[in-house]
């Protein structure tokens, strides 16, 4: 019930933003940048702002990352989701000042795979959150950092 209300509120908020011309035409094409989620300083808040407070642990998400990364400024992370109908992949570095690093919405033949390079401040869990069929799945991998990358 409450969850539905949240979703509705968010939708009407987005509609309002478009309707009142707060968003420029070019930005409507791309999904609006999720400011509250990206500015959350706690993992729980970031998840809440992503609309994903309840996560299901899944073995069908594979996080490819080094066990030990010497340079935290460039940590290669790849996430593969074998969950059918994967809609989006978000990547969270749990101990970063702003944990949510990225959200990737896939569609039209884009596969449940994304590979990026992250800055990670200190040894931390890297969490992948995959949205599929409206549900949220998650997996975690620890990455040890020798030299932090947020300075």
């Amino acid at each position: 019930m409450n969850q539905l209300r949240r979703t509705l509120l968010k939708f009407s908020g987005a509609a309002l933003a478009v309707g009142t011309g707060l968003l420029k035409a070019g930005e409507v094409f791309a999904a609006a940048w999720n400011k509250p989620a990206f500015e959350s300083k706690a993992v729980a808040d970031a998840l809440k702002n992503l609309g994903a407070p309840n996560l299901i642990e899944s073995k069908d998400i594979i996080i490819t990352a080094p066990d030990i990364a010497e340079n935290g400024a460039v940590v290669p992370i790849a996430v593969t989701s074998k969950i059918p109908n994967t809609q989006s992949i978000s990547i969270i570095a749990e101990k970063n000042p702003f944990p949510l690093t990225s959200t990737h919405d896939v569609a039209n033949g884009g596969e449940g795979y994304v590979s990026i390079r992250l800055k990670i401040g200190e040894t931390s869990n890297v969490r992948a959150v995959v949205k599929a069929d409206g549900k949220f799945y998650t997996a975690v991998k620890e990455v040890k950092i020798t030299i932090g990358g947020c300075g």
Partner: protein
Amino acid sequence: MAEPMKIRATLQVDTADVRILMQHPMETGQRKDAKGEIVPMHFIQNVVITHNGKTVLDAQWSQAISRNPFLGLRVKGARAGDRISVTWTDNKGDTRTDEVAVAAPS
């Protein structure tokens, strides 16, 4: 003016393996310069990748993505010669679009 991206799209059976390298400082807003002043945030917020005009990946990024970002993705159902276009937009409104054709496997 933003530097051009390096994009490589290679066909592997029925899937295009796309690798993108963008040129961008990706400032976090936490780093200080030689004078001890904070370097303002400057990072790519949105990346949209299209395959023959249809959006296949719509990414939202934070400042935690590394400098000169790399992005790898796979596009199912692609054929050699298909157009892959990449557009990024940063938090200062700067934007750049580059396009390549999917290359046949060598």
